[in-house]
C-alpha cells in the first residue's frame, strides 16, 4: 500500500479507490489492469466500456426481474435506460452499485463488471464500490442536515481530505445550485424546493468525485422547469462522468442521452444502441411499438 501511494502521490484516495477489494492487495491482475484503464480513460477511445453485464439475471424471491442482460456502458457518455413499468430498469441500475444487496429477497446471477472487475465477486466490498459510483434517487432525499453537511457527507464518510469549503462550493456550482444557496449553507437541506433538493442530492453525489453517476428517474418528482434544469445539468456532467439514467420519459431519454437501452416487460434487454438509432430506426418491432406508444 505504501509503495502504491508513493507511485501515485497525487491520487488522493488511491489506496481505496483504485480497487474494490476489502483488502488493499494490488497483486490481482484484474484489479491492476483496472487501475490503468481507470486513469487513462479520459483520453481513451470513445468506446471504452466502464460497466458491462454478462448474462445478468436478477430474481426477487421467485420472480425474475432481469433476464440474461448483456450490456456495455461507455465512459463519459449518458446512457439512458427506458422501458415500461416493472421492466427491471431500476433493478438493473441498482445492480451496478449493489444497492440490491439491501433487499434481502434479491438474488443475482451472472456478471456485472465495473472497470473489468465483477462487482459480485466475493472479495468486492460494496462500500468501496459505492464510493466510486454516485447515485441520485427518484425523489429528492437530502439528509435532515444543513446544505453544507449534505454535500460534505460523502467526503466525511469516505475520509477524503482536503479543503471541504472548496469541494462543497465546486460540487454546488457543478450542480447549478451555488448561486441559489451560497448565503444559506447552514440552513437545512429540507427547506429547499423539490427541484433544489434534487440538485442538492446531485451535488452530494458528485462531491466525492465518483467515476460514474447513476440516476434513478431523477426528475420524475419535479415540475417541468426543475426538470429542464436537471436535464441541462446531466448534459454538462456527462463531460466528466459516466452517467446512467433510468427514465420513464422517452422524450427525456431522446434529449439527453447518447446511448439508449430499452428494457421490456419481463426484465429483458430488447435493444441497446445509439439513441438516434433507437428512436429513429429501431431494429426490433417491439421496441418500435414501445417507442411509438403502441404499448407500455
Amino acid at each position, binding site marked *: 500500500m505504501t509503495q502504491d501511494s508513493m507511485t501515485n502521490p497525487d491520487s488522493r484516495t488511491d489506496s481505496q479507490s483504485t480497487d474494490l477489494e476489502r483488502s488493499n492487495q494490488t497483486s490481482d491482475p484484474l484489479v491492476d489492469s483496472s487501475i490503468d484503464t481507470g486513469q487513462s480513460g479520459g483520453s481513451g477511445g470513445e468506446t471504452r466500456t466502464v460497466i458491462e453485464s454478462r448474462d445478468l439475471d436478477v430474481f426477487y424471491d421467485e420472480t425474475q426481474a432481469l433476464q440474461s442482460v448483456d450490456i456495455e456502458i461507455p465512459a463519459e457518455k449518458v446512457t439512458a435506460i427506458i422501458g415500461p413499468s416493472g421492466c427491471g430498469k431500476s433493478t438493473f441500475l441498482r445492480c451496478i452499485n449493489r*444497492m440490491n444487496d439491501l433487499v434481502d429477497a434479491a438474488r443475482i446471477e451472472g456478471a456485472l463488471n465495473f472497470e473489468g472487475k465483477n462487482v459480485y465477486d466475493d472479495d468486492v466490498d460494496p462500500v468501496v*464500490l459505492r*464510493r466510486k459510483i454516485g447515485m441520485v*434517487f427518484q425523489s429528492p432525499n437530502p439528509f*435532515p442536515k444543513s446544505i453544507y453537511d449534505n454535500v460534505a457527507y460523502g467526503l466525511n464518510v469516505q475520509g477524503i481530505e482536503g479543503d471541504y469549503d472548496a469541494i462543497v462550493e465546486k460540487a454546488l456550482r457543478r450542480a447549478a445550485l451555488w448561486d441559489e444557496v451560497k448565503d444559506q449553507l447552514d440552513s437545512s437541506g429540507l427547506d429547499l424546493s423539490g427541484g433544489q433538493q434534487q440538485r442538492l442530492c446531485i451535488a452530494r453525489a458528485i462531491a466525492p468525485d465518483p467515476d460514474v453517476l447513476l440516476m434513478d428517474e431523477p426528475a420524475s418528482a419535479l415540475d417541468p422547469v426543475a426538470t429542464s434544469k436537471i436535464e441541462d445539468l446531466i448534459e454538462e456532467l456527462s463531460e466528466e462522468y459516466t452517467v446512467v439514467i433510468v427514465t420513464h420519459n422517452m422524450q427525456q431519454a431522446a434529449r439527453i442521452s447518447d446511448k439508449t437501452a430499452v428494457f421490456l416487460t419481463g426484465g429483458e434487454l430488447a435493444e441497446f444502441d445509439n439513441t438516434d438509432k433507437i428512436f429513429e430506426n429501431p431494429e426490433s418491432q417491439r421496441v418500435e411499438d414501445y417507442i411509438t406508444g403502441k404499448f407500455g
Partner: protein
Amino acid sequence: MSERSIDVDLTRSSSGRVVKERIYKWLLFACAALTVFVTAAIIYTLATDAIAFFMTEDASVTGFFTGTEWIARSDGGTFGVWPLVTATLTITFVSALVAVPTGVAAAVYLSEYASDRMRSILKPSLEILAGIPTVVYGYLALVYLTPALQWIGIPVSTFNLLSASVMVGIMIIPMVSSLSEDAMSSVPDSLRQAGYGMGATKYEVSTGVVIPAAISGIFSSFILALSRAIGETMIVVMAAGLRPRMFNFTNPLDNLLSSGQPMTAGMVSAVTSDATGGSATYLSMFALGLTLFVITFVMNLASDYVASRYQEEYQ
C-alpha cells in the same frame, strides 16, 4: 320518476336511534373526562395536604426548600428536602448513564442490524423486561447486585445508591430502546439509501443518518424514561435504604457507595412510620409528592417541547 320518489322516506323512523347515539356520546365523554377529573383531584389533595404540612410547627416553606437535613420522627422533626432531592437526582443521573447508551445501542441494533428473525426474538424479550414488577428488580439489586459489586471490589454498603441506580437504569432500558426504535424505524428508507449510496457503512448510516434524523424521538424517550426513574419507588426503597443523607459534594463518588433516601422512599417511610395522621411527618409525604409531581410534569413538558422543536418534516 315521480312514483319512485314516493318510496324514498328520509324521516327518522324512530327516535330511539338518536337517543342511543346521545348516550354513546356521553358515555365516551365521561370516560375521557374521568382522567381529567382524577388528575385535578390528585393535584387538589396534594396541594391542600402540602399546605397543611407547611402550616405545622416543625415545617416551613423556606425550611423545606432550602434545608439540608431531613429527620422525620413520629413526633415531628426537621424537614429540609435537599437530601432527598439530591438522592433522587443521583439515582436518575446514574440510571441514565446505564440506560441511555444501552437503550440507544439496542434500538440501533433492532432497527438497523437485526434480521427479522432476531428481531422477533429480541423485541418480546425486551417487552418481558419491561413487564417485570419493579419489586423484583429491587430484590435483585439487594440480594444479587450489591453482593456482586462488593465481590468485584467496590466497597458499597448493604444499602447503597449505586446498586439501586444501576437497577433503575436496567429497568428503564426497554423504555428507551423501544421508543427510540420506533423513532428510528419511522426514518424514511430513502435516507438510508442515500447514505449507502454515498458509500457509507451500516454503522455510518446508523450513527450519521438514522440517529440524527430520529433525534427528537430519541430525546423524548430519554425524558420519559428519566421521569420513570425519578418516580421509581420499590427498587430504591429496597436497595438504597431509608436513611436520608445529604449529598456529599466534597466526595461525589462516596454518595454512590453509601445508602441514601430519594424522595419516593421518603414518602414510603412517612406513610409506613408510626406518625399519626395530621402530624408533620405524615403530611410531609404530600409536600414530597407535590414536588415530585412538579419535577416529572416539567420533564414531560420538556419532552413535548423537544419533540416539537427537533421534529423534521419529511415530504
